[in-house]
């Protein structure tokens, strides 16, 4: 939906959208938090909102909130507006809107008179909470990792998020770079750390049919990653992910770039379903996608 006027009205907002479950959005955005202060870049488009966070050029997280997750989504801009804001501030601000027992419908509007992001609670006739967050012009363009598959066939596996998180937590003990090795024979994924102690965590494909939900690997692939970056990919997975037994997909692309994808449910159980603009009821996938990209350490062990 876009404005029909050819000369765009300067006062018309570029985006007005409504979410019905703030808590879900907070969960999704929190997954990308690994530090107290993180500068995020928010990009608005007709397809939805993307929030990107980066660190030291080696780690990037992207949270995709597609338009279907919103109760309403009116986008009326040319191009894709991008602005910078503090991720922690955004999450904390959204949190204040989600009080238990109250309707947590929030309207997000951009831009405000001074290019702020405006948030307003709706759905309660008695009171209104209102917030505005200052935005800034982002200094840098987020790195586009151009994730490509190395070779002809992709090298990836999928595992329950809870198991991956537990394994990465255990790998804190060696306290060194972590080597991720995937091998076709016997088919398995091995995470290894050796510091003041050695630890190796193996996910053998044949050990248990439930362990590796998916596994694709036709040649041995091995790269090393800094532990703190690897840890950032799972440290703040919301508990709903564990409860719903969701899986995480891990891929190793060209050059050893690691891509970790989580699925975070944005809907609260018992919430009413979204009705699309056509008026028909549908069961949407109330899932937000979180993607992490991690660059490998310099000493790459080639397959």
């Amino acid at each position, binding site marked *: 939906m876009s404005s029909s006027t050819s000369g765009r009205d300067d006062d018309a907002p570029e985006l007005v959208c409504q979410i019905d479950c703030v808590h879900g959005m907070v969960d999704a955005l929190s997954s990308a938090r690994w530090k107290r202060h993180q500068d995020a870049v928010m990009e608005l488009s007709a397809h939805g909102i993307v929030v990107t966070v980066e660190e030291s050029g080696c780690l990037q997280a992207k949270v995709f909130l597609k338009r279907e997750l919103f109760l309403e989504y009116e986008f009326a801009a040319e191009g894709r507006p991008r602005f910078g804001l503090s991720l922690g501030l955004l999450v904390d601000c959204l949190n204040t809107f989600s009080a238990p027992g109250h309707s947590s419908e929030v309207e997000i509007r951009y831009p405000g008179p001074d290019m702020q992001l405006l948030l307003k609670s709706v759905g309660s006739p008695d009171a209104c909470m209102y917030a505005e967050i200052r935005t800034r012009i982002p200094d840098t363009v987020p790195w586009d990792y151009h994730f490509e598959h190395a070779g002809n066939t992709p090298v990836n596996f999928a595992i*329950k998020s809870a*198991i991956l998180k*537990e*394994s990465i937590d*255990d790998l804190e*003990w060696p306290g060194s770079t972590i080597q991720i090795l995937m091998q076709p024979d016997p088919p398995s994924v091995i995470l290894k750390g*050796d510091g*003041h*102690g*050695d*630890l*190796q*965590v*193996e*996910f*053998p494909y044949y*050990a*248990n049919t*439930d*362990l590796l939900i998916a596994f694709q690997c036709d040649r041995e692939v091995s790269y090393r990653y800094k532990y703190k970056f690897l840890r950032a990919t799972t440290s703040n997975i919301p508990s709903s992910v564990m409860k719903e037994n969701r899986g995480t997909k891990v891929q190793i692309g060209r050059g050893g770039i690691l891509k970790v994808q989580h699925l975070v449910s944005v809907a609260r159980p018992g919430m009413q379903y979204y009705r699309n603009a056509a008026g028909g009821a549908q069961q949407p996938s109330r899932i937000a996608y979180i993607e992490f990209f991690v660059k490998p350490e310099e000493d790459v062990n080639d397959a």
Partner: protein
Amino acid sequence: MELSMSGGALRTFARCVTCLARVGSEVALQAHPAKLELHTLNSSRSAYASVSLARDFFDQYHLPASGHAASAPPSTPLQCSVLLKSVLAVLRTPPAALDRLAVSLPDPDAPKLQFILHCLNGVRKTYWIACSAESEVQTLALDRSRFPSHLVVRPRDLTRLLSNFQSSLQELTIIATDPAAGLPDAGGDVGGKAVELRSYNDPAKDDCDTRLHTQLWIDPAEEFMEYVHTGDPVDVTFGVKELKAFLTFCEACEVDIHLFFEKAGEPVLLVPRFALDDGSSSDFDATLLLSTMLVSQLIDSNVAQQPATSAQLAEEPRTGATPSPVPENVSNHTKIWSELSGIPSCGTGHHCSTPKSFEANREIQAQERNASASVLNHTSMLPRVINAPCKPPVADNANNTKVISANPRSQHHPSNWVGADDNDDDNEVDEELLVQTTPHYMD
């Protein structure tokens, strides 16, 4: 050495490691043909903990044939020493999530000990822990039969008794008397309670924790499952931290605690008491050996002071302090006064801990008034109390101090006492805020 365990044994193993980790920082593993032993010693060498796991404890237990150990004579058990912190890191995965745990040491000189955890969800975690080059842990073995006295207590009962003491308590004194010795009933409530637990405060430490003293008289027939002590009263003072670790261990394993003791200066020995009806023996065992203070809390205060230190486990010297000439009645020795400031009608401090002690308090006051040699057997403590009613009575354990104490003669702090004259250093206590005596109890 290769071994593997699962199920209940795995849970017990985790508990053993947790207990050992609360005592010392390094564990020495010794693999004998019939059992595996884990030993640890705490940093001040005052506590030694050991766990013994029989061959049957494990699902698999393989040792190299003695012929292969070329460098070591066959009688030397396979041995290695690792940090307990590292073993705890291995056991971070809860035993409930594990199918089995395998431990292996490829050869006696191997630099690393290997732990493989097979999780129920299919994940396999392999840890390699570096072995320490030299182990400081020795093996200590004490024959239980050399201890003349012992008691058996349920862990939850002991927990309940210890809960009467401040949680920051460092050392505890157990005063054991012969329950068969006829006690003249001195004060009603105290008589018949043959065992006393008393907090021990290091006089050299001047922090808030030393201002609370607690005494607990208990009837062993009610609190303990077994209690054997004959002859003179004895007391043993030892550290509480390791005791609590052992207590937690026994409680989790659902076994009673068997405590063997002799007298001050001799170590106390704690072992689990398995209640096995069918005469079989348990497939694991544990030992905690605690050193005790050399100087007895029961010693007459007239005795010349000797510098005293906690006994080292390896030595068994006898303190030079002379025991009191007369076998005292327990009631005398156990009626020391708390060093809390309180209203003294004549400078005596008051207990605030248990009603029983309050009874004793009243009793001494009555004695002072009577100024008689007393209903109780005499001890040199009483005359002092009577002669100097307005000065703080010296506690009967006044001379028991550690080497570092500046004042070798008195254990208590002058600042704790509010004297009739104005020489108190205790500037915390205002005259008006002195604690009023509680009304007569149970009269």
